[in-house]
């Protein structure tokens, strides 16, 4: 097939020169062989925390944007919170925008628009049809990062991720950059949960793929560029991983189930998130809805989920020692009686000894609940 008089073995000097130029930088390229996970700050149990604390507020609504969803938040210096979510006439509409609000410990500020499809088009220099799920996180250098979904063609399965960074605690933001995370037209990468921080300043962003097959993946991000990925390809029909680090190498993640197994799924990693186990079902039911997780100071794992197979009408808290078997602790919204209500997409933060929960309330509001470990322990409810 390749035989030809012209095709004798021959290497042009120019080709060799280019090849050397292409390979030479690899000599100086430093690749980290291991991922060292950073652990969240530990907050010792203070006397004040012995008193049960529970406080629920609503984030301000945006005029003309009745449909809200998918809140995310990050703790700022001085105990403040910055939250983001998307709002518009309906999910997936062209008028949907990413909004932010700041919590000063007492009240939430007037929402500010962070991104919409027009600004994303101008900043990423490409056509964008709609925007969706935002995720907010901070890196070890103090910068805030916003990752959000945008779609140019089709539905959510055609999504790509965009990244913005702020060096002044969210007051101003750099223009959005497109994250390239898939070889196939760079479509179908979405994000929902907060990332795992690494000791070297990078993060592992939990993401998921939806086109043709659904599976979770973790993107290694460094200041707005994807520098590596690890797909959990054996976890088909699961998505939206909610991970947490146990130590420098071990991590766990809980997954929304979109397949026939209507249980929250569980995967783990023992090499800093590079490889993940095949999923296992937990004992918590899941109606194809997002979950959130955080590790409490006593080592227990707190999981927020919709514990039913029929809908998102009940948001409840569960505790576990091992991440596989959970014990129902308290209801946060709704009840176990089936209804058309929706209390969904929980997002958890633990800081300064308190736990902050943001969730979608009936698609009309983003609710903020601040509680502590004592409040969780005070609950003596049972799940029917």
């Amino acid at each position, binding site marked *: 097939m390749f035989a030809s008089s012209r095709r004798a073995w021959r290497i042009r000097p120019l080709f060799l020169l280019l090849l050397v130029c292409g390979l030479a930088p690899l000599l100086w390229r430093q*690749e980290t062989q291991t991922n060292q996970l950073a652990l969240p700050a530990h907050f010792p149990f203070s006397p004040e925390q012995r008193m049960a604390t529970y406080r629920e507020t609503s984030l301000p609504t945006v005029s003309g944007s009745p449909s809200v969803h998918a809140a995310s938040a990050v703790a700022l210096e001085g105990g403040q919170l910055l939250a983001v979510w998307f709002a518009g006439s309906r999910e997936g509409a062209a008028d949907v925008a990413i909004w932010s609000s700041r919590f000063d410990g007492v009240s939430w500020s007037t929402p500010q628009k962070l991104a919409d499809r027009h600004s994303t088009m101008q900043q990423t220099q*490409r056509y964008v049809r709609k925007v969706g799920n935002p995720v907010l996180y901070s890196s070890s250098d103090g910068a805030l990062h916003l990752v959000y979904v945008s779609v140019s063609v089709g539905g959510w399965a055609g999504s790509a991720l965009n990244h913005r960074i702020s060096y002044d605690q969210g007051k101003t933001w750099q223009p959005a950059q497109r994250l390239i995370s*898939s070889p*196939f037209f*760079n479509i179908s990468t979405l994000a929902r949960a907060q990332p795992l921080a690494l000791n070297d300043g990078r993060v592992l962003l939990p993401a998921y*793929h939806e086109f043709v*097959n659904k599976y979770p993946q973790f993107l290694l991000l460094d200041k707005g560029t994807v520098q590596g990925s*690890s*797909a959990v*390809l054996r976890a088909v029909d699961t998505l939206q991983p909610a991970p947490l680090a146990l130590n420098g190498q071990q991590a766990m993640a809980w997954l929304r189930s979109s397949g026939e197994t209507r249980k929250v799924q569980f995967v783990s990693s023992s090499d800093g998130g590079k490889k993940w186990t095949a999923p296992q079902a937990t004992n918590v039911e899941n109606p194809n809805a997002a979950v959130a997780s955080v590790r409490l100071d006593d080592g227990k794992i707190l999981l927020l989920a919709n514990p039913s197979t029929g809908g998102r009408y009940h948001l409840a808290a569960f505790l576990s020692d091992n991440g596989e078997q959970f014990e129902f602790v308290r209801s946060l919204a709704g009840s176990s009686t089936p209804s058309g209500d929706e209390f969904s997409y929980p997002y958890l933060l633990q800081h300064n000894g308190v736990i902050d929960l943001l969730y979608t309330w009936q698609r009309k509001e983003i609710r903020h609940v601040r509680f502590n470990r004592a409040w969780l322990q005070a609950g003596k409810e049972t799940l029917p």
Partner: protein
Amino acid sequence: MNPLSLTDAVGLAGQAWLLAALSSYGLRQHSPVVVRFGIGLVVFLLALSLPIAGLSIAAWLRGLWGDLSISSMLVLLFLQRQPPRDHYQGEIAGLTRPEWLIGLLLPALVLYSSALGFVPWDGYSLGYQTPFAIAVAVVALLWHSLGYRLGWYLVCGLIAWQLGLLESQNLWDYLFDAGLILVGAGHSLYRWWRPLSQRHAYGRGWL
């Protein structure tokens, strides 16, 4: 207005180059080289500068299918050089040639199968790693030493990856893109299904 980054500039130029090359290629039977070049240049500039709803045509196309790989840009370059009436009728820039099928199409099928979740193996993650870049260099040297143009495509992709010309940090995205693979695969299938008598030019070199 935000300043255009290098990767945005390369990405947009790739889309404009696509339109320019296709328009020029469409005129190859009827127009002399100078006219084709001139029309191509006008199309290129219009695609970058003519705003439609606040966005250039190149930016609209970029939103639809993403950035072109370095190989795609080189294919478009050689498409320009294709003679108006060459005897390789139906051949588009050599995309049905064996080295393309073996060197790009087969790896792409494996890569896309894994990226779409059909096989439990993450082939795309290889593209971030140094050993994969060295392997690509070896393969490029092999193709080149055998006299095939694919070696040049691979080494150009490798250099562009080192320079960070595209938004992606993944070497796979510099070697090929889904549009190139779909066009190449579709064209190959078309040629294979044609009657044997019309396939006389298949496999002939034009390097």
